């Protein structure tokens, strides 16, 4: 993916840049709002990562508003040291697609950036059937099959699996699952998400020879058929 990173803190920028490049992405960088805005409007990116507070008079929200004002729908991930829920809402209202507060784990950032990049690619037709390896999900009849065997899932488990399949091959973090599958925006002190994933595994992986859902240490989960 082509990614633009606009971040003024050189340590954070270097750290994110290195990580994204190691993950195989092409990354342009800007350390102030002016350059960031110039790159964002003149080049074509799959994802833009924007720090909210930027030197040079143009902050992240201004860049975002300008982009959206020009009908540019490039997915934007906002980075901010402002953890306030209202700030988050303001960021999303201005047209941001995701919001992360500093400090963050790089794995979380990578997972979210890759999720956004995929979302940016338009689907040719609305899908009614999702498949990964021998796992099949029918979105209309709401049934799941692996090979020839039908798997019975609770509604919430179905949505969890659907999210994993839609992001197959990508790491999804616990926070992403909590936000996207449950629509909760807080940090549970207990391992609620792990338990739900492990129950899903019981049904989707346990009876079969090869597991599909893998745990990525210090990051989250990935669904892939390899």
């Amino acid at each position, binding site marked *: 993916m082509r990614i633009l990173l606009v971040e003024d803190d050189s340590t954070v920028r270097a750290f994110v840049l290195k990580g994204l490049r190691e993950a195989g992405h092409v990354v342009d960088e800007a350390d102030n709002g002016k350059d960031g805005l110039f790159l964002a409007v003149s080049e074509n990116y799959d994802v833009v990562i924007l720090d909210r507070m930027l030197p040079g008079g143009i902050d992240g929200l201004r860049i975002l508003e300008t982009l959206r004002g020009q009908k540019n729908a490039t997915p934007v991930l906002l980075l901010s040291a402002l953890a306030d829920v209202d700030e988050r809402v303001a960021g999303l209202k201005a047209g941001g697609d995701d919001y992360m507060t500093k*400090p963050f*784990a790089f794995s979380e950032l990578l997972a979210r950036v890759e999720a956004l990049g995929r979302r940016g690619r338009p689907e040719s037709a609305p899908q009614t059937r999702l498949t990964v390896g021998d796992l099949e999900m029918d979105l209309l009849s709401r049934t799941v099959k692996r090979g020839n065997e039908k798997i019975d899932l609770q509604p919430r488990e179905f949505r969890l699996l659907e999210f994993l399949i839609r992001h197959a091959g990508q790491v999804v973090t616990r926070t992403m699952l909590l936000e996207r599958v*449950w629509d909760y925006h807080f940090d*549970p002190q207990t391992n*609620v998400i792990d*338990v739900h994933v492990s129950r899903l595994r019981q049904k989707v992986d346990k009876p079969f020879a090869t597991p599909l859902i893998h745990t990525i240490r210090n990051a989250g989960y990935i669904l892939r058929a390899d």
Partner: protein
Amino acid sequence: MKIWRGIRRLGKRLRWPIRSAGLNFALAYGLVFIISAGVFLSFIWWNTTGQLDRQVEAAVQVDAHDLAQRWVHGGPAALALAIQDRLDQNVEDDELYLLVGPDGRKYAGNLPGWPVVITQMDEFYELAIRRDGFRTQAKMHAYPLSEGFRLIVGRDVRGRQVVRHVLTDTLIWAWVMVSLLAAGGTLAIRRIFRQVVHSIARTTSAVAQGDLSRRIPLTGNETDLVAQTVNTMLERINRLMDGVRQVSNAIAHDLRTPIARARARLEDASLTSTSEEELRAAIDRAVLDLDRVTSIFEALLRIAQLEAGARRAAFTVLDMKPLLEGLTELYEASMEEAGLKLDLKVGQLAPVNGDPHLLQQAVANLLDNAIKFAPINTAITLSAATQNDKVSITVADQGPGMDEQDMARASERFFRAEAARNTPGAGLGLSLVQAVVHLHGGTMELANGHPGLRVTLLLPVIQKKGTLPA
């Protein structure tokens, strides 16, 4: 015009010298009092003396009319007789008459001669006359009769003059007294004003000096309105200051600990690690420590923000039932995993006004706590009901519970009961719950469930009818 403009210019140059609001207020009060007393007393004077004058004039005119009748019926002789008659009967000796013929000769009456000043026949004259050897004041009217005769009817008004003097003196003295009283009142008002302002100023300046415990004494008058507002404000400032103090103490201790731990780990790893693996493990642990610092920071900031009471933007009419059902669904699995059973007991609930995300977090914190402390193979109950005008949400576990002293301190930031020292957590969970509940105008109550802890959140129900969500 020129003079007036000059005065105006002078007025502009000479600014009103008194700045004290109390003194100005008092002066205005005194001035208004004195002027109105003056106007009032002048009116009394003018009305009373006027009334006396009018009485005399009316009597003279009636008398003259009477005598004119006599003249018509009996001529000079009858009129002279009538005049003599009246003079004889006049005990008070205040009536004055004079009848003169065309030649100027006096026919009857008690006036020595026609006064020179009386030339008109249609108005009253008031003049000094000599009578029986002493001077006196008289009010007289001349009337023309037929055949060149002329008549003067009058009254000695010396008595009226005396009354007028007495009245004038009395009223002037009354005015002086009223003015003195007004001046006294002015001083009294100024004093009261100063006292009121002083009592507020004393307290606020003491507060400004740093003594936040001072409050303005309530006196029962209108200034209590200000005093009460200021007191409430001070109360709030005090609470916020306490919060800040608590937080800075907490930061000094509870944030330093994980930072120190991370630092020690990193330093130790840098000095003594022999393999890359060992180094990596130390770094990973240090990152976890730092993540903990971040999460404590976030929780602290959120609590501070909630306590500031500024976060009501996301408030909406909310049915707590689906919210609790959703949380139950989320937590049920992990509870089962921990060997616990989560019972949800919830009926129809009245709507509350609230921020769903914050309330979710509050209840989730309580459930997290319950999981931490409940012994295996017990049940955790999440129940909710509408009681009067409150929605109560209770999380009850069968864990060790808390003793009374700990309960009282449970919502303090970073407070951890002795029994909880060895469980993970920073002691911010209940503080956050309390802050959320307070923001919603509700209360948090802790009680002993024998066994276990019962935490109840009481949220006020929306009072208006017809706002029930569909």
